[in-house]
């Protein structure tokens, strides 16, 4: 048996939590120094959608932030949005097209976040990439499913324009399975294909009365609104489901004239997959929530929806998703009078467009089976990823899939081993393990820039004021990673490390106490030892070591003294 080589990456918790591993610590550090432009550049290294993710990402980074233990997480998403907005404010950034280094053409099917990210990454590597999109505009769910009040269309267009600048060709109005097939693409000379068509079909309720007039699936509803189609919105609307799509559909309905909007969800509020602040905003919009109810049938009159009949539920044991399973209570039928029902139960892959050879034989599980590590399908040269492989997920997860696919395609086209060194274990470097010192302090300020859904115009008025506050917010970052790798020209920051002169050390323990990071431990000989992975090079130990046994590699006392002398000689 060959031994697997696991790459171990040491990342701060925010970066480890991000599916796309965006270098959070770096751009936060740059914002802290007022380098907003560089911050966006750092984000763009890992993520082509800073402004989009700054608005609608579910920010796992903030959930992981170590600052939570002290007061509250750094408002990472708001910072990201701010720098992206500042950049846009100064005019759209036009990227330099990347010269085509390679001749192998790559086709990407689906212009959503996964496809666009793969195109972005491959274009950066120097491949000629073509994205095929069925709709008139690229952007996928970002454009057609997230309502305008959460994510403005021009923001999406702007980010996609940046990808186009790099030299990616986007062909819209081309449907996979109808206009193009795997064979036709191969014949046209595409050497690798990435299928990222997402999940486009809304899941059905499977209750009687679903075909009545006035029942429209949330995805279709949102898409119709985004396309500007005229649809009749009822006076009283029931949205069924508890995800972000449900919230979006409910809020959209309300904003488009529905008098009363209710959300029916079969579990309780704690189990809702929607983001808490989205739920709050929906409540502010006047949307009513009914928990622990599930529709049993939709009652119609003259072919139109008249009411939904629901059953009450109670929560049972947790299921495989960790949430408590709802169990219907017998004879608890009751009705809500509505004239429109929007089921938002999730989405499914449109299997009809996929070539049958790709579909998995098994009934259960995703219809398209791919290698989770390399995103290969069973046809060589064809890769698939994003929602199509995982089921409906988030933008940032799609971005991660796109990046993964880009690496695989690059390796495939270069004839390299697809699997080699891919599997990596991520080790979190939450240095702040010892909260002893931190418990004393309390949070005193509300994060000033956390205004999640200001429109761009509204935010513009704040930008100047926010810049300063953003720096303050960024300042709260504890910098859990040993080095942010922000690549800013910070001479001081380049991985300074403490070094112990073992001959001088007397084991007095002062450095162990002083080190804010817990990087110094005494070994069995009683001599201090620096864990270089954790050391942040602050130099506090060097300033306190009673025997002056600790010195810094880069900025030693002698060097500071030299700087003093040169300054005084001026």
């Amino acid at each position, binding site marked *: 048996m060959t031994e697997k080589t696991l790459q171990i990456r040491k990342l701060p918790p925010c970066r480890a939590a991000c599916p796309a591993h965006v270098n959070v610590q770096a751009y936060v550090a740059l914002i*802290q*120094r*007022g380098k907003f432009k560089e911050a966006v550049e750092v984000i763009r290294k890992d993520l082509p959608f800073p402004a989009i993710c700054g608005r609608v990402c579910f920010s796992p980074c903030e959930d992981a932030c170590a600052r939570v233990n002290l007061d509250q997480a750094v408002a990472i998403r708001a910072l990201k949005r701010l720098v992206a907005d500042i950049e846009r404010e100064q005019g759209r950034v036009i990227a330099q097209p990347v010269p085509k280094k390679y001749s192998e053409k790559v086709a990407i099917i689906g212009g959503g976040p996964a496809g666009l990210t793969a195109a972005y990454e491959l274009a950066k590597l120097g491949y000629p990439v073509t994205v095929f999109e069925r709709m008139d505009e690229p952007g996928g769910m970002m454009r057609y499913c997230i309502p305008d009040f959460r994510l403005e269309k021009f923001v999406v267009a702007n980010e996609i324009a940046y990808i186009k600048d790099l030299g990616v060709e986007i062909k819209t109005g081309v449907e996979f399975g109808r206009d193009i097939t795997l064979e036709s693409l191969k014949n046209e000379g595409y050497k690798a294909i990435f299928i990222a068509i997402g999940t486009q079909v809304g899941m059905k309720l499977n209750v009687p009365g679903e075909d009545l007039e006035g029942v429209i699936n949330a995805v279709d509803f949102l898409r119709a609104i985004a396309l500007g189609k005229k649809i009749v919105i009822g006076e009283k609307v029931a949205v069924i489901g508890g995800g972000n799509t449900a919230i979006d559909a409910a809020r959209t309905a309300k904003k488009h004239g529905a008098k009363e909007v209710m959300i029916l969800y079969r579990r309780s509020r704690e189990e809702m997959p929607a983001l808490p602040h989205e739920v709050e905003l929906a409540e502010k919009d006047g949307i009513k929530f009914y928990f622990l109810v599930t529709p049993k049938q939709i009652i119609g009159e003259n072919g139109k929806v008249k009411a939904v009949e629901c059953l009450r539920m109670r929560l049972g044991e947790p299921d495989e998703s960790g949430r408590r399973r709802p169990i219907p209570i017998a004879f608890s039928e009751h009705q809500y009078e509505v004239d429109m029902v929007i089921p938002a139960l999730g989405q499914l892959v449109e299997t009809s467009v996929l070539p049958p050879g790709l579909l998995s034989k098994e009934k259960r599980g995703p219809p398209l089976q791919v290698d989770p590590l390399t995103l290969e399908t069973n046809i060589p040269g064809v890769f698939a990823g994003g929602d199509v492989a995982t089921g409906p997920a988030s933008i940032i997860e799609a971005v991660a899939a796109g990046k993964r696919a880009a690496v695989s395609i690059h390796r495939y086209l270069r004839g390299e081993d697809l699997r080699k060194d891919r599997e990596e274990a991520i080790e979190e470097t939450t240095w*702040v393990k010892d909260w002893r*010192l*931190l418990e004393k*302090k309390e949070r005193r300020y509300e994060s000033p820039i956390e205004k999640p859904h200001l429109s761009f115009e509204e935010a513009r008025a704040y930008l100047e004021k926010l810049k*300063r*506050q953003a*720096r*303050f917010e960024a*300042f*709260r970052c*504890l*910098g859990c990673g040993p080095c942010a790798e922000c690549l800013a020209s*910070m001479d*001081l*920051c380049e991985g*300074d490390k403490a070094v112990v002169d073992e001959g001088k050390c007397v084991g*007095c323990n*002062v*450095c162990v*106490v*002083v080190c*804010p*990071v817990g990087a110094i431990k005494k070994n069995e000989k009683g001599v201090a030892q620096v864990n270089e992975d954790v050391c*942040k*090079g*602050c*130099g*506090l130990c*060097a*300033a*306190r*070591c*009673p*025997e*002056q046994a600790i010195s810094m590699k880069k*900025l030693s*006392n002698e060097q*500071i*003294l030299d*700087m*003093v*002398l040169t*300054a*005084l000689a*001026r």
Partner: protein
Amino acid sequence: MSSNPPRIICFMCNWAFCEEEMCIPYNVDVIRVMCVGRMDPALVLETFLKGAEGVMLVGCKPPDCHFVDGNLHAERAVKMLKKLLVLAGLEPERLKLMLISPLEDRDFGQYAKEFSEEVWRLRDSPLKREDIIINLTAAKEATSAFRLRVLLGREEELTEFMNAYGEKIPEEEFNALLDDIVKAEFIRYKIHYLTRIKPRSVKELAQILGIKPSAVLRHITNMRRKGMIALDRVEGYTPLYKALEVR
């Protein structure tokens, strides 16, 4: 008041101000360090010795230190350094620690200007005087020695948590202790410095230091035990002491 503005060295935390935004007065030199707590106390005194007329330490306002409590470490060091400056006969106002929140509207330049005016208002720099140089050197050596540094490094542990015997030392008690030790260490290193120049007697040292001969003798006994000083020769009935190389 001298005609030229005083030369001021400012040690600034890497995270405190953005370089591009600062307007720095001509007489001030900014040296960036990783954290204001990183400043070795000996280094601060050395800066005075090299001719700086004022030293500014700029860090971040608690509780926002990039290194959790580096700014508090700096506060403690400055407290001790000011004591030493007084002992050395230098105005403690020449050293200033500023912990500034990055959200404050004032510019660094204003702080720097204020400080240099403060220093300017003090009488002429005594830094050229020989006795002050001796004092400062003694103070610098005291801060690079074991005892003061251990005390400094342990202050938080001792006053806010517990020592090895499970006792918590009240702040006032610690300050009194610190006062005593700073004074004693300063005198010992001054004795060390003076005897380094030439062997001296207890009486002579007492005269220079302005303290009782018995106190000097007590220090010398202590220093002999630590190997800092040794008997050089006896002139008549008077023993003369000479400094030994430390470490």
